[in-house]
């Protein structure tokens, strides 16, 4: 592969980008390596199709085929990333599928800094969670279906990430939604799980209404679906885009809010934990839910030029989301739900950073978060695997039984809590620093969001400390007959690999010292030219880290106390009654939605019923009319008319034949006599005619 990379690099001719794009970075077309990037997108689909058709006859339901394809994506993504690091690549391939009016419907693969980063993240997290799932899903009732859907997801995510036009992105967007639906409802025997799948699907559909309108308006204005054309028009100040920029930006952001579980669309993500844990790790933590952030990143030049008024809204939505979701995580007993709310909260950070105009900071948090959050989910899965319960009240003391899971989960938690020098520390600090920067550069309200971020950092550290102490410290409170044990190597090795990622991922963007990540992301067309801190923002750095450390310390004081019973801890940690009730009931948002749904449901159902009756009547009327008409045609025209005449012709011919056949006597001499008479008559006739 390395040889291929050098070959591709030497083959790729250098292209200089236009100077007005700000950076003047030399962009290469990436050569063969970029041209064949579509292989990454296609292979998972091939695997999904193969597993669907032959999975039942393949060992382990085709698990290793699925792992192989995502492993290929990882290797290819890594090689691309290294090449991109050496020489920035920006390459687009387009295939025309259909032309409708002035619009070309295309399938394209864009290979640039942003998509390469996502290829690598998807490849890395997918390889870890696929490998993990080989062991985790062993003996599952529907293993083949799981692998087919999981591979489908990998392919769909890569379609989304590699999209060169906004329509293809929409296709990928809906495909990941489909895979999410299939996998959340994997254990559909329980009504609760299939309802969760339905909920995720429907909430996303509501948000997708915004997305699809937001996709169509710019395409109608610019006359093309390509990002290249839309972003180009936006940067050049296309009057139509300037006029409708705010609306388009807001509609696209509504779509992003649905997929990235931003308030008020965040309600689906915690319920999505009904799916198998590797699914939660890959889709509902690292990749699919970051699609909204990716969309904002891809469209960032657009937001930064014509839709700049949307950005404060984006920032505030992110700020609100990070705080409310963080608070909810405190009262959860289900370990996966703690992580789910934590994911929503961290997505809030990314969105807030995007809203503050910090393209790099938001995507950097996406990058680091992918590692430590998928690590946490896989660790939680390992714990669940061992104690056969999702509830932390059934756990405790597991550090003695499962040391590898313990230390990897610990690293993940510290990284998430922003413990100094781990991945989350750098990225969270960068988000907060960019909010601080924005507050003094045109968006004063960013100060509030920055403080919300610091408070959330404290809350994050607190609930993660709670989760770690309740799970791994104290005494084992689960089923005494069933002693927990460490998971098999196939599950612990991905944990260890991700733990390494959770430590080192942060070092790829140390402000002012080592910033390859910033360079990766700016290696694209219409580079956003956002602000990059030249050094650490010491004020924010200290505050953010202190918030995290205090959170851990308070969590320790409440929940550590080795040997204490669960009840004793609960007595000691008690939020004031009303707040606790509010949090346990998730701010009654779900109930509020149900109220609206019920309010609309009855009139809608009645109206639909009435309309249905109308349609029924029309259909029945037509049916009766047709039946009468058919009867007339059959009996009157067909039977009495056509059939009768045909029968008469046949019968008449038969009768005539019957009557005339007696002429045929078989006697040669009679025939000869007739012949002679005939000739004689002809001769006489001839004679008469000629002699006249």
């Amino acid at each position, binding site marked *: 592969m390395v040889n291929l990379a050098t070959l591709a690099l030497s083959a790729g001719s250098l292209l200089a980008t236009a100077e007005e794009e700000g950076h003047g970075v030399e962009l290469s077309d990436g050569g063969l390596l970029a041209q064949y990037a579509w292989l990454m997108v296609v292979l998972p689909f091939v695997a999904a199709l193969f597993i669907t058709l032959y999975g039942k006859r393949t060992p382990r339901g085709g698990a290793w085929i699925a792992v192989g394809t995502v492993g290929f994506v990882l290797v290819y993504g890594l090689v691309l990333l290294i090449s991109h690091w050496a020489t920035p690549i920006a390459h687009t391939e387009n295939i025309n599928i259909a032309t409708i009016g002035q619009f070309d419907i295309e399938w394209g693969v864009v290979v640039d800094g942003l998509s390469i980063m996502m290829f690598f993240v998807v490849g890395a997290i997918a390889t870890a969670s696929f490998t993990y799932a080989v062991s985790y899903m062993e003996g599952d009732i529907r293993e083949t279906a799981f692998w087919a859907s999981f591979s489908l997801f990998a392919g769909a995510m890569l379609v989304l990430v590699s999209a060169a036009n906004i329509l293809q992105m929409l296709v990928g967007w809906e495909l990941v939604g489909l895979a999410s639906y299939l996998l959340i409802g994997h254990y559909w025997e329980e009504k609760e799980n299939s309802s969760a799948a339905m909920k995720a699907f429907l909430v996303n559909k509501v948000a997708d209404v915004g997305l699809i309108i937001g996709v169509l308006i710019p395409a109608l204005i610019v006359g093309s679906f390509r990002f290249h054309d839309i972003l180009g028009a936006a940067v050049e100040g296309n009057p139509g885009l300037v006029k409708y920029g705010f609306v388009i930006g807001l509609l696209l952001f509504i779509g992003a809010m649905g997929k990235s579980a931003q308030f008020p669309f965040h309600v689906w993500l915690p319920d999505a934990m009904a799916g198998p844990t590797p699914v939660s790790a890959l889709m509902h933590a690292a990749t699919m839910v970051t699609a909204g952030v990716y969309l904002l990143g891809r469209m960032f030049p657009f937001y930064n030029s014509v839709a700049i008024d949307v950005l404060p809204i984006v920032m505030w939505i992110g700020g609100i989301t990070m705080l409310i979701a963080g608070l909810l995580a405190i009262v959860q007993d289900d370990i996966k739900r703690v992580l789910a709310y934590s994911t929503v909260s961290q997505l809030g950070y990314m969105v807030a950073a995007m809203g503050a105009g910090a393209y790099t900071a938001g995507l950097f948090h996406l990058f680091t978060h992918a590692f430590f959050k998928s690590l946490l989910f896989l660790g939680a899965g390992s714990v669940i695997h061992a104690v056969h319960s999702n509830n932390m009240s059934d756990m405790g003391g597991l550090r003695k039984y499962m040391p590898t899971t313990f230390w990897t989960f610990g690293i993940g938690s510290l990284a998430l809590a922003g413990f100094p020098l781990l991945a989350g520390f750098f990225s969270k600090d960068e988000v907060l620093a960019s909010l601080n920067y924005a507050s003094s550069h045109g968006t004063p309200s960013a100060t509030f969001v920055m403080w919300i971020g610091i408070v959330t950092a404290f809350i994050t550290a607190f609930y993660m400390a709670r989760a770690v102490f309740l799970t791994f410290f104290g005494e084992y409170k689960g089923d005494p007959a069933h002693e927990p044990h460490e998971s098999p190597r196939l599950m612990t090795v991905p944990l260890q690999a991700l733990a390494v990622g959770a430590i080192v991922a942060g070092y790829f963007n140390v402000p002012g010292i080592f910033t390859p990540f910033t360079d990766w992301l700016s290696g694209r067309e219409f580079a956003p030219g956002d602000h990059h801190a030249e050094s650490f923002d010491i004020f924010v750095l200290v505050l953010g880290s202190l918030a995290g450390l205090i959170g851990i310390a308070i969590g320790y004081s409440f929940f550590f106390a080795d040997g204490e019973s669960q009840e004793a801890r609960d007595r000691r940690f008690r939020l004031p009654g009303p707040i606790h009730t509010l949090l346990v009931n998730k701010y009654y948002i779900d109930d509020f939605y149900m109220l609206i749904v019920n309010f609309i449901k009855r009139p809608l159902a009645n109206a639909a019923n009435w309309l249905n009756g109308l349609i029924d009547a029309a259909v029945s009327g037509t049916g009766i009319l047709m039946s009468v008409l058919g009867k007339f045609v059959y009996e009157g025209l067909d039977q009495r008319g056509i059939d009768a005449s045909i029968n008469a012709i046949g019968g008449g011919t038969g009768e005539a034949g019957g009557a005339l056949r*007696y002429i*045929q006597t*078989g006697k040669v001499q009679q025939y000869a006599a007739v012949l002679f008479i005939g000739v004689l008559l002809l001769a006489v006739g001839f004679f008469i005619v000629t002699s006249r």
Partner: protein
Amino acid sequence: MTIAQFAILGGLLFSVGVYGVLVRRNAVLVLLSVELMMTAVNINLVAFGRFYDNISGQIFSLFVIAVAAAEVGIGLAIVLLIFRNRSSANVDELDLLRW
């Protein structure tokens, strides 16, 4: 000798042949009657050939004789086979193509 005398001879001979074909029951005699009809035709051909001073009439009659010989050969062979199969050469009984 006028042409009418030859024509009358031909007509009479032809009528005898027709009578034989229509009336005789033995297949051999039917064949012979056919020969008579051909002979009448030959007389006509030769007579008219001479009358119009055209040699082709005589030449054509030679062809007719040759064809008649061949025809009689085949006809007699058929009659012989019929006789062997049915021990009769009676034309009246050969009515297999009857309704």
